């Protein structure tokens, strides 16, 4: 393992942190949750945060916690889709394409929700699933995988996730279209 300080990783991939926290804030506002404090980016751990009111409404907590995960993943796929062909397949020396690829990977790398967010969903999921909430049922495998991946961040799981969706998703889309 290469020991790279967290602040350096945060600095190198700061757009992802900002997009993630902006997503949290947007969803807190959309679901009318009180926001007590926000940090969009800093050189520390965590690199950004949104401290918001908790709620027992599963759908609200699901979207507020998982929204940035889906938004970051989607943006990562879109940016990488535009850049993966020149970077990986066509061997083009195009700085703009590399810039878009970096932007996509940075955003994808910060897709994971925090462990606290996942814990909250995990706590509310069983009772809501029992009441037939489809979102709660669907959340079980997603949260379980993300929970494990969150711990695997030490092994660059977040970067691995960014690269995986930054290559596999565009590649799959491209193959399907051609």
């Amino acid at each position, binding site marked *: 393992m290469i020991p790279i300080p967290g602040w350096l990783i945060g600095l190198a991939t700061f*757009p992802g942190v*900002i*997009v993630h926290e*902006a997503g949290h*804030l*947007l969803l*807190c*506002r959309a679901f*009318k*949750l*009180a*926001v*007590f404090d*926000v940090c*969009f980016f800093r050189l520390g751990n965590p690199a950004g945060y949104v401290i*918001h*009111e*908790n709620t027992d409404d599963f759908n609200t907590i699901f979207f507020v916690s998982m929204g940035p995960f889906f938004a970051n993943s989607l*943006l990562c796929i*879109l*940016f990488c*889709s*535009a*850049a993966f*062909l*020149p970077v990986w*397949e*066509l*061997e*083009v*020396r195009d700085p*703009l*394409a590399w810039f*878009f690829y970096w*932007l996509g990977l940075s955003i994808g790398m910060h897709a994971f929700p925090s462990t606290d967010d996942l814990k909250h969903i995990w706590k509310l999921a069983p009772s809501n699933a029992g009441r037939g909430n489809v979102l709660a049922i669907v959340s079980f495998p997603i949260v379980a995988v993300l929970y494990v991946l969150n711990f695997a961040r030490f092994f660059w799981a977040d970067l691995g996730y960014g690269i995986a969706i930054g290559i596999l998703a565009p590649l799959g889309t*491209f*193959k399907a*279209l*051609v």
Partner: protein
Amino acid sequence: MLQGKCEQCGATGFVALFMGVDGRLLCQRCTEQVVEQAKAQRASVEIVSIIDPTVCYQCKTDYGSTELPVVGGLPFCARCTPDLYARPFPPWLRLSLAGLLILLGVALIHGARYFKAGKALVLGERLVAARQYEPAIPQLQAALAIAPDCEKAILLLAKADLLTGRYEEGHKTLIGHRGGRFEEGPLTTDVKQTYDRVANGLEKLGEARKLFQADKNIEASRAIHIAAALLPEDPALAGAVEVVDGAAAFDRKDYDGFLAIAEKAWKNHPQSPDFAGTLASALACKYAVTGDPTLRTRAEEMLEKGRQLAASSPEAMQGYKEYEERIRYRLKSRQIIDRREYDRRFRPEKSKP
């Protein structure tokens, strides 16, 4: 602001300045003592800050003894509460997010040309895999127009060029990229093998050409067969093999073999005045040997066909006239002599070196 009493030393003060230590309300001094003791004993201690419900958590305004409504477990005054639900996006963030969306648009537009190149590369690769080299070439050229350093496209194009007889283009395509150096891989190995095979084939073909020009037709036939085996995809080579084989059979005086080859060549190239002439020549040879008049008639028919076919081009007509004269002599005299001998006897101006 609420007053509190330390559960350890009994000191009183504002509750906001107290701490909750393992469930007890302690002043700051006692909290520090407990923490020091816990450190010494290597024990853990749970410390929580005490929130005064009469002081707004946001603006810190003291509302005396009036407890404020709680939002998320924290007291907020009526003035601050609405802000919690409408936390503004800083202008720089709004600008950044707008910029990000613009960048996304730019990225997608910028990537469209690469999508076209990537699509052309994939289609070209599929066509090469299906051995459809001709239609693969424009696809791969389109990919290289956008991505000129793409090794995969270069190698595939070179392969398609080599396997369609465009040897010069294939060679230029390969050499044009870093002097012909490529990253090792199955495709590189495959193209290198194809290139080496083609190079050997061309060398052998050159040898066959020299031998044929020197009227060493039997040796030329041997060499051109090796070249044809090395260059099976060359569409022009099959005709050349027939010409050389026919000449070799003539040299061996194997007129049956010569006729069989000439018949086959004529069947394969029914629009060629040269192959009409070759068949006429073979029939004339057989007539000269057997005296069978049907062979003479057929030879004359083939000469007439050759004349008709050559009429469209002055160059072809010139070739036709050259062989017509010799074949008519063969039919008339029933003497079989090759062109060199004929020129020596009747066309001395042509036999000069």
